[in-house]
């Protein structure tokens, strides 16, 4: 199967400023791919290279198997794009704006356009300059979605949307994916990426630091495990298990961080009489923060109490 998006050592520099460095990505058809990173990490730069809005300094990018710099128009025919920040025509109404974008694409399914307008609760009769931030975002979303593109490239799509409209947006995304379409979504809202994405890539300082399924990424972050024993606490035995760190003994309880498979910890615990066994799965946020060398607040406290290191 040809990857919908494929980049090979994609690099973009802005003079002496870093953009992205040797980014390798592959996005398969029918998946929702999340592109995560804080502000300035290189998310928008990557997206703009994929759409040939800017040209790579080195490396290559392919969308639908077409090199982005060779035939961008063929790519654009099959793409719906929502920029992170955009302005449209102040004097046109929302409806006229959508009509213009539809015309640029040579037409569309008007019923689908109407359904999107209705579902996003957009008043198309108002001038663009009169819209609130959220309503402008809705116009952008409908413009990106209305022609049922094979690939949706969405840069911070939920910015400015209220929770109800966000729900509608994710429902529309699910329907698009159910139709076999692909979504490439950049965000720094980790909860929405966790909810919507099949796979995510984390970009840091212009470089991809991790690409995996959302659930696999979670495994990479430490589980927080708490064992409560009926008798003395065998801390030393647990400290020797591979992947175990930050072991803290307190009365009959033993708390630790477990990275990777949890089975060795379960086996070791089974040799003792346990009162309780609690394992908390890490969130994507914890994974993300771990990649950036920052622990969430709860973990930070534990590290301060017993800094065994890994």
């Amino acid at each position: 199967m040809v990857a919908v998006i494929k980049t090979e050592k994609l690099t973009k520099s802005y003079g002496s400023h870093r953009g992205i460095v040797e980014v390798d990505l592959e996005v398969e058809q029918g998946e929702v791919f999340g592109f995560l990173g804080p502000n300035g990490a290189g998310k928008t730069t990557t997206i703009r290279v994929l759409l040939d809005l800017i040209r790579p300094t080195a490396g290559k990018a392919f969308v639908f198997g077409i090199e982005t710099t060779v035939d961008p128009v063929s790519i654009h025919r099959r793409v719906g794009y929502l920029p992170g920040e955009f302005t449209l025509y102040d004097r046109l109404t929302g409806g006229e704006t959508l009509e213009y974008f539809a015309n640029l694409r040579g037409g569309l399914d008007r019923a689908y356009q109407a359904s999107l307008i209705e579902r996003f609760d957009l008043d198309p009769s108002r001038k663009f300059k009169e819209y609130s931030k959220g309503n402008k975002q809705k116009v952008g979303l409908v413009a990106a979605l209305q022609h049922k593109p094979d690939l949706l490239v969405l840069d911070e799509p939920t910015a400015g949307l209220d929770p109800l409209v966000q729900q509608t947006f994710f429902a529309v995304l699910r329907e698009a994916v159910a139709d076999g379409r692909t979504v490439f979504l950049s965000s720094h809202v980790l909860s929405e990426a966790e909810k919507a994405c099949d796979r995510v890539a984390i970009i840091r300082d212009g470089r991809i630091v991790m690409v995996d399924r959302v659930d696999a990424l979670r495994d990479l972050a430490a589980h927080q495990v708490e064992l409560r024993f009926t008798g003395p606490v065998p801390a030393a035995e647990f400290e020797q298990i591979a992947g175990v760190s930050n072991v803290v003994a307190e009365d009959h309880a033993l708390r630790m961080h477990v990275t990777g498979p949890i089975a060795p910890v379960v086996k070791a615990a089974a040799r003792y009489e346990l009162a309780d066994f609690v394992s908390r799965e890490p969130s994507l946020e914890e994974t993300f923060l771990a990649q950036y060398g920052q622990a969430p607040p709860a973990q930070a406290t534990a590290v301060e109490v017993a800094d065994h290191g890994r």
Partner: protein
Amino acid sequence: MAAELGRAPLATPYHISLRSRFYGLGSVYAKTMRDSRLAFIVAAGLMSGLMLAVSAAITKAYPTADSRVQLASLATSVSGVASGIAGKAVNVGTMGGYVQWKYGPLFLWIVAIWSMMALSGTLASEAHGGSLDFVAASPFGKRRIALEKVAAHLTAVTLAVAILGLATWVAGAAFATLPGDAIPVQAAVGFALWVGLAGLFFGGLAFALAQFFGRAVGAGVAGFALIAGWLLQNYAATVPAFTPFALLTPVAWTADHLPLAGQYNWPSLVPTAIAAAAMLVIGVEAFARRDVGAQQAVRTPRLPRPLRGLRGPIGRSIGERLPLTLAWSLGLGIFTLAMAAISKALADDVAKSPDLLKTFSQVFPGFGITTAGGFLQLMIQLEYIVVGFAAATLVSGWASDETSGRLEMLLSTPLARPRWAISSGLGVYAAIVVMTAIMAVCVGLGAAAAGSDALTPMAGTIALGLYAAALAGVGFAVGGWRTSIAGEIVALVVVATYLIDLIAPALQLPDWVHQLALTAHLGQPMVGHWDAVGVVACLVIAAAGLSLGGWGMRRRDVAG
């Protein structure tokens, strides 16, 4: 507890240098001064440079007492219609008197336009853009914000007119060749004060209106008042019905204050200063008392749906440019209509007087001024600069697709970059065609009303359109490299062309310098004399510029 809740947060005080408080980021005033630096440099440089250049040119072009007598005779012997165009002629035979008569209003316009743009935009457009919310949320009142911004502009204008005053005095000292040419300090100060105060009146008007109706309405009404005030005052003698309306602006109040001509009316500056201050106060108070960004909606009719341009990029570009095009066309059309309507009367005036004809022929060689077309050609030369600025604004509009961030979404559709550049550029050319057609109709109507040949000048307006198209071509070529400066570069070319065309012959510079001005190659189309070189040059520049723009867009990154 309540007291604690009410306590202001303790900030760690740190020293803000005095320099930063006056220029930089240390205060609203300092930031406004910093933002005004380019406009200040342009305005002060343009005014002082123009003063020095025209003063030098006058004494070189009219070096003898005889030539000055002829010049004065020309200025004072024309009919009321003609003197209405140029204003009151006093001591035109002296260097200062001639500058005051021919160029005085130009200096006022520079300061007035600068003030209108700066003061209408300083709060209203920031409110529109949203940045004002951040400033207004700072721990000081809205009145203080407005006062600091106005104070900064007043400082910049004061400095600029002070430099103009100095340049005026230096021009008098350096270039005076005949008795009466020297410009005393009193005259330089009086001229600079008049330019500054009258300019601030129109800026204040724009500022006050902008708080209620937004920047466009504020600047538009003030601009209209500036032009209308000038025309009404100068034609009040010919058309007495104009007098009550003419008295509404400082152009009438200060009509007798002609310092460079040695005629002073200091008291006339007092009401000008009071009116300017009053409007600035109204603006400040309106800003302080009204909601940030609140504007009275001024309903303007929408373009008919087919003209909004929803079918494709060419149509969209035309639709987007059309309101501006119609605004320019209206202004230019009224001007051309008026010029065409009076040209026959002026030509007849000259034809009746052999002395006047001789003088005119010496001052404006090469113009067949005994015919309506010839006189129209002479007057329409001014319109090249206005058409040029119209082209600059149209190019800025074209560039706004990218500078505003729209282009990113447009190019994510199956619209190739060169196609966008060329299609939207063709939209600009279509707008220029519309503007030219309206000017042609107006000049035809004016000529027909005066009973002179209408078809030749109608065809002649095509030269204005060709010049605008060439300038737009320059803008597209620059836009292929960087759209953010395309409009500014076109404006620079317009000013440079005007100055070369004006100064090169007067200073008897080598002919090749004058030939650099495109307007020097456009012949006299109002009398049917076309210069094929200029026509071809315009067409080639327009076509090549558009192609270069498309080529450049294909190669570079799109600004995000």
